[in-house]
Each structure stands twice: as structure tokens, then as C-alpha cells.
């Protein structure tokens, strides 16, 4: 075992109470950062869930549409114009919009209607656990997520209710299709979606384009944009970015999450810096002795940085454990905290950077040591 590591670890362990306080500070800080960044990732995924599950190479939408939930409408003629563009194989209309769901036991609750062409696909429910997609062809048939049964006042498949005064029956049940707005999604056919949301028969919210085999998606996108007026033509990636950008930064939610993460890092840095500084001060005689023995400043800096890294590794391991518990606890909520391998690496790097930055005050203190003080101590 390296003597530097041994000296650093024993300096830390020498004052157990301070060591534990440091670790608690790091854990608190990193769990806070984990939650904030995990929420950021979770939020980013949730706001694009419909784009992720749509079967489309390109999205045509009214110009200026900010996100999937934007209910701006365009004329369905755009769909036919799109079909006339070279390279377009299919153009599938989608209608979305908010509607009032009449709870069977009384009262109403808002729902988010998504209507698509059942035969062509486009944007249909996934993760079906009961019923079938074909059953949605039955008049009044809808699909809802089982998470929202309580909210919608229904017991399960076969339940009936009303949307905008029209009777609906649950014919398919999904699992895990949740909205970060907590408004339940209701899947149905495009015609009934128009009826539930009050959209005119000649209007659509989106046209999902599938390009012909062998056609270049970007070339088709450019041709569509050039030939269709007052619309935006985006790839799924572009639409995801636009949606994330709107929800995370257009609303300030992303800044709040980053500010929380930054606050966690600052608090952690201050706690670790304070404890490392006081630990160094307590061991200043030993550092002066090292200096008197001829150790270079670099050697002493290594001891302090090693202390910081030991704090970082132990603190991160405990924080990661707690973080995983938090991730598991929020997995089935509307806004899950997401942990990815990359985020784990980023969090570890942040922990190390935080602890090393914290060591600066202690390093400055040690750098000023006069080795001759060993004769007077």
C-alpha cells in the first residue's frame, strides 16, 4: 500500500467524527445532484415519449409548434400535398387535444386525446396489457393507461364513461404510458379524436411521414419544407430537441433543476473544503515535519488530494446506493428520476472534481508552511 495513501487514509480516520461529517456532506450533496440531474433526464425523456414511440421518419406540424402537446392545427390538405412529394411513402394524420372526461361517479377531469389512423399506425398505444389495438376500431373504443384508473373513476377494461358528452368504452389498457403533466392520455381513432376535442374534420395536428424505401430522409425533409407553406418539417430527433428545449428551458424547469444541482455541488464543496482545511490544520505539525524532512510540496499536495479522493470515492459509493433507492422509488411515478451509466460516470467525475477543488484551501495552507516551525512546536 502506498505510504501516501496510508498517511492520507489514517489522517482521515484519525478523527472519525469529522470524517463521518464529511462523508455525510458529500452524500447529501451528491444525492441532491443525482436527483436534480436524474429528474432532468427523466423529464427530458418523458416530454418526448410520444415522439419516441411514433412510427415516423418525419413530422409535419404547424409552423412554430413548440412541443408535442402544442394543439396548433393545420389544414389536412398538407397531408395530400406531402403525399405528392417525391420520396414520401405514407403521410399519416394525427390529432391531439385536451378534453373533459366525465367520471362515472360524477365530476370531470381533463384528458389528453391522441387520435391516429389505426390501419396506417402512426401514433398508437404501446405496452398493451389488456385488449387489443384492433378493438379500438369498435365505435367508442379507447385505450387508457392502468395508472389512471383511479383518476378516471374506472375499474378496468370494459368500463364506460363520457368524453365531451360522447360515450366511450375502455377496450385496451396500457402500462407505463404516463404524462409528466399528470393528465391521462386517451388513445383513439383520428375521427373520434376530432369529435372529442372539437377539431374540424379537415384539420390535423401532425402529419407523420414515412419515406419510401431507399429515399434519403433529409432530402425528403428539404423537399417537404420547400413545397409546404406555414409548416415545420422535422426529423424525430429535431422534434425531440425542440420539445425538450421548450419544456426544460422555455418554462425554466431545466434551469431550476440545474440550479438545484449546482447548489448541491456548492454545498458539498464548502463542506468538504471546510473539513479538509480543519483536518490539515490539525495535522499541520506533521506536514511541517514532512517539509522539514525534505518532502517536496508536490508530495504533501498528493497526501491532501489523496484525502480528498478517499472522501470522494466513499461519499460517491454511499450516494450512488442512496441514489439507486431514490431511482427505484420514483420508477413508476409521472416523473421518474432516471439513472444512466453515463450519468453515473458524470456524477463520479463531479464528486471527484468537487473534492479536489475542496482541497485547494488546505493545499494553500500547507504550501505556506515554514519547515523551521518544527523546532518551535
Amino acid at each position: 500500500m502506498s505510504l501516501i495513501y496510508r498517511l492520507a487514509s489514517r489522517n482521515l480516520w484519525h478523527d472519525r467524527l469529522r470524517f463521518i461529517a464529511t462523508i455525510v456532506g458529500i452524500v447529501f450533496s451528491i444525492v441532491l445532484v443525482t436527483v436534480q440531474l436524474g429528474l432532468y433526464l427523466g423529464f427530458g425523456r418523458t416530454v418526448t415519449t410520444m415522439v419516441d414511440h411514433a412510427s415516423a421518419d418525419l413530422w409535419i406540424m404547424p409552423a412554430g409548434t413548440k412541443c408535442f402537446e402544442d394543439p396548433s392545427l393545420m389544414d389536412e390538405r398538407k397531408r395530400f400535398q406531402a403525399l405528392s412529394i417525391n420520396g414520401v411513402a405514407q403521410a399519416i394524420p394525427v390529432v391531439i387535444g385536451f378534453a373533459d372526461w366525465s367520471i362515472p361517479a360524477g365530476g370531470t377531469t381533463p384528458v389528453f386525446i391522441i387520435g391516429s389512423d389505426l390501419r396506417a399506425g402512426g401514433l398508437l398505444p404501446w405496452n398493451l396489457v389488456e385488449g387489443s389495438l384492433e378493438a379500438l376500431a369498435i365505435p367508442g373504443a379507447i385505450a387508457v393507461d392502468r395508472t389512471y384508473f383511479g383518476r378516471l373513476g374506472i375499474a378496468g377494461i370494459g368500463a364506460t364513461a363520457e368524453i365531451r358528452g360522447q360515450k366511450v368504452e375502455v377496450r385496451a389498457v396500457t402500462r407505463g404510458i404516463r404524462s409528466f403533466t399528470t393528465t391521462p392520455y386517451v388513445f383513439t381513432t383520428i375521427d373520434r379524436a376530432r369529435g372529442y376535442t372539437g377539431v374540424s374534420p379537415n384539420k390535423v395536428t401532425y402529419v407523420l411521414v414515412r419515406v419510401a424505401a431507399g429515399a434519403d430522409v433529409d432530402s425528403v425533409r428539404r423537399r417537404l419544407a420547400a413545397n409546404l407553406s406555414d409548416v415545420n418539417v422535422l426529423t424525430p430527433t429535431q422534434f425531440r430537441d425542440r420539445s425538450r428545449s421548450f419544456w426544460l428551458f422555455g418554462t425554466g424547469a431545466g434551469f431550476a433543476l440545474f440550479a438545484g444541482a449546482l447548489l448541491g455541488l456548492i454545498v458539498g464543496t464548502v463542506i468538504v473544503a471546510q473539513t479538509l482545511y480543519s483536518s490539515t490544520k490539525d495535522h499541520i505539525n506533521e506536514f511541517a515535519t514532512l517539509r522539514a524532512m525534505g518532502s517536496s510540496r508536490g508530495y504533501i499536495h498528493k497526501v491532501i488530494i489523496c484525502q480528498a479522493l478517499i472522501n470522494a470515492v466513499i461519499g460517491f459509493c454511499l450516494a450512488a446506493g442512496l441514489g439507486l433507492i431514490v431511482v427505484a422509488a420514483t420508477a413508476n411515478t409521472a416523473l421518474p428520476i432516471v439513472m444512466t451509466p453515463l450519468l453515473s460516470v458524470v456524477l463520479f467525475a463531479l464528486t471527484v472534481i468537487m473534492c479536489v477543488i475542496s482541497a485547494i484551501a488546505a493545499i494553500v495552507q500547507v504550501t505556506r508552511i515554514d519547515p523551521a516551525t518544527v523546532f518551535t512546536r
Partner: protein
Amino acid sequence: MTAPVIEAVDIVKFLGAGAGQVQALRGVSLALRGGELTLLMGPSGSGKTTLLSILGCMLTPTRGTVRVDGQSTEGAGPEQLAKLRREHVGFIFQSYHLFPTLTAADNVRLALDVRGDNSARAKARAQEALAMVGLAHKINAYPLELSGGEQQRVAVARAIVGKPAAILADEPTAALDSENGIAIMKLLAGVAKDPAHGVLVVAHDPRILRFADRVVHIEDGRITGEQRGDAQLKKGEPDCAVPDHVHKEPRVENHERVEK
């Protein structure tokens, strides 16, 4: 006569600044040679520790020249001075300054580790050094588990393990009882038998005079006398009487200074 392992020539040192400034050393010259145990004696405030710090490259003189193993320290920065210390000087302190969280063996090994020697051989050398000071059976003991005398022996082992040319000891027996103090001085005298090592001991304690080859007296920042120590006398060399640094007229060789 061997070449000096450390040589200070006409050292002047001011400490502090402004109205509080004091002149700690006033033109001191001293050479420490290999194979010799030199005792530096003087009353409190005489400049002993300041001189020791300058000889050990911990302080730089205001004026004058210090040469360590033939290399001048003039213009050397803190890192160059640290390099000279780790390569040529071993220190022993009055209050031991051992690392309480490390075992005796690791305390000794630290002197090699700061030199960049962290090999398995370094571990063996540390154990050999502890065996030399009679602590082979305490290599895994922590300082708090050792008596004061044992702790100082660990400090001696730490000072000699790197085989430095000069070993500088600041009142190494002051915190010890008579028996342990004598044991430490025997160790240092043994080290000084090797012409590769020169040992300088700062002390007040007249009981350790018998271990010295040479006794240098300092007062008010000046060398006031120098004489052969008991160890030389026992070797049969003629000299003046047993030193009484305040009252006896010291013999002055090439390092002058009786200005009183």
C-alpha cells in the same frame, strides 16, 4: 581531515521585521565534518536553533554562505532547499515529531518515501534502521504505544535510514530521562563513527558532553568558543579541560570568534 558535509561561512541572520527585528546570528562560521559528533551549546536565545535551521536548509541566511555537501545554497528556492534536505540531511527533534497514525516502520520508511523510494527494499531498510536502534521488535508499534525513549529512537532511525551526510539533532535528549538520553547519545555517537556522517547536536545538557568529538559554544548570535569534546579526549588527544562554556577560555581553531 574529511571535507565538511555542511559548512556555514560568516552567517548573519535577522529575524522579524520593523521595530521587532532581532539579529539572531552575527557572523557565524561552522563546519560539520563526517565522522564527527559536534555539540552546539549555548543558553536560550543564543541562536542555536536559528543556526541549526540554516545549516539544515530550513532558513536562508540574511548574509553569508552555506554549503551542503559542497553545494552552495545561495539563491536556492524552497524546493531546491527541500531537495538538499532530503538528500543530505536527517533531522531529530526534541519532541520527536513522529506521525501518530503510522507504525514505527512506516514512520521510518517515510524518510525514504519522500525521496521517491517506495520500493520493497525501502521497507527492508526501514526495518534494518529500526533494528540498528534496538527496536526490531517494535516495528508495528504506533508512537503512542512507545515510551519517549523508544519514540526518539524511531526518530533516530528515521534520520539515518536515508544515509544522509549530516544529521542535525535539536535537543534530542531534552524530553528524556537520563537513561534514555544517554542511550540516544550513544546511538548518535555510533552513527558519527562513520566518516560518511557528521552529527550536530544542539543541547543544554552537560551530561552528554562525553559523547562529543567537538563542542562549539554560541552566545548572543556569536560562536564564543570551540573545544575538543570528551570523546576526543578519551581517544587520547590532548586538549583543554572539560568545557565549561561560559567560564573557560575555549580553544579557537580556524573558526574564530571569541568576541566577548
